[in-house]
């Protein structure tokens, strides 16, 4: 099993969710986060004084998936979240040792 983590633009969140549900993903964890990549945030102006704001708001999605689905899911997220402009985000995959469903005690694939 793998943990797929994606950091995407907030306005792409609904599209990504729909695409993942259509594929058959049954659950995910979503959080509002902030951070920056190479483009480094944005500038705000208050009474003519400019402030460089390093952190940009993003949505982080975390999904635990079967090994066999990993590539498809990464592909769906990448394709759906892409605008072609700077700041589209990142997707990364990490290995997971075990998963337990708290309600029943089922493990690994049965727990997804």
């Amino acid at each position: 099993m793998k943990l797929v983590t994606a950091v995407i633009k907030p306005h792409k969140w609904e599209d990504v969710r729909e695409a993942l549900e259509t594929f058959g993903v049954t659950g995910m964890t979503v959080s509002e986060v902030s951070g920056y990549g190479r483009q480094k945030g944005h500038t705000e102006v208050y009474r003519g004084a400019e402030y460089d704001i390093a952190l940009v708001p993003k949505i982080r999605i975390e999904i635990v998936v079967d090994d066999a689905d990993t590539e498809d899911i990464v592909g769906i997220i990448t394709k759906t979240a892409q605008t072609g402009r700077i700041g589209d985000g990142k997707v990364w995959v990490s290995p997971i040792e075990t998963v337990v469903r708290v309600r029943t005690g089922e493990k690994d694939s049965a727990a997804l």
Partner: protein
Amino acid sequence: MLDLLPLAAPAAASDTASGDTAWLLTAAALVLLMAPGLAFFYGGMVRVKGVLNMMMMVFGALAVVMVVWVLVGYSIAFGDDLGGGLVGDPTQYLGFKGMLEEVPGAPYPITLFAAFQGLFAVITVGLIAGALADRTRFGTWLVFAALWTVLVYAPVAHWIFDFNAGDHVGGWMANELGALDFAGGTAVEINSGAAGLAVALVLGRRAGFGKEPMKPHNLTLVMVGCGLLWFGWFGFNAGSALGANNTAAIVFLNTLLAGCTGLLAWLTVERLRDGHATSFGAASGVVAGLVAITPSCGAVTPVGAMLVGLAAGGICALAVGLKYTLKYDDSLDVVGVHLVGGLVGTIGLGLLASSSVTSVDGLLYGGGADQLGKQLVAAGATLGYSLVVSALLALLLDKTLGFRVEPEDELAGLDLVVHAETAYDLHVTGGARPHFGGGPGSMQP
């Protein structure tokens, strides 16, 4: 202002003119609304850790100044002159002595005029707080507010607002010089701006000024505050007509128009300079326009009022950047908006006064430079007096009581350190646990 008193015939059921009295009561209440408006306006501009302290500085000033005004301030401002038009007799109306009897034929009760004028002092002192954000000892601020009212506001109000009437002798600007200031361009705006600059210089810059971001924490509060200030400003300016009359109507319209053109001018500067027209710029432009029209609202035509607002919005939008160039920390731009805006309006009156509205024509209306010269003298005298006395007072308080908080308290934020409160609690649990020690203030199980 007193020379604008309408000589109304007494109403049938009362010795006072009830319509004028009703308007002045309303106007006074509107001016009071400017204090919470100012608290919101300033509160939104500071960082999260100091919003309550900022608001408390304004509310605290309201309480202290009003008390001092009744005890002695009004008497210094509007008592019989002690000589040279410099100061009124402080003992004449001590504690509003001798003012409570109804005067037959008076257009309104004198206590109402005194309360209305007291609220001008409140706003003037409240404005100064904007220069002192995030680093001022609250107790010392209250002492400063009381002493500044007596030493600076009341004498300057005497100079410009106290007119000769019968045996009464008033201040030098109003009667000898002949400068015009309808609702407080000198006594309120230039005065508070100069004092803000003086005390900001004595206190020094906030820790991290020019290096750390100190952007406003809540621009919706700023917009709410701006709206309340604008609303209250109608009482400030149109109330200064001291009657429900034609002058009040013209002043009302001029106040409205100057706020509008101030907004448009500030946004134009921002759009050209920074690429964006901001809400903060809109709120600031409204206030700049209102500041500038305050002295001139009873002397200019509606077109003149629009020009005053335009000039103020544009010039103040450029002036607020001075503190970064000159490296003084006038935190919320009291100098850039109120001192500069007050100067624009006071001097603009010398250019744009029209005899269709007031007693004189300004330079641009064919009246020559005479009135302009008078306006410059009044503005310069107020600026100089306020700067020097405010700085001396601040230095005295700094040496005795201490005017600035400790560095660690400044970093922690004055809301928590001074008031034991925080403005916003966005956690479900509030991050707080009740303690059951049974001491004063603790929660009981």
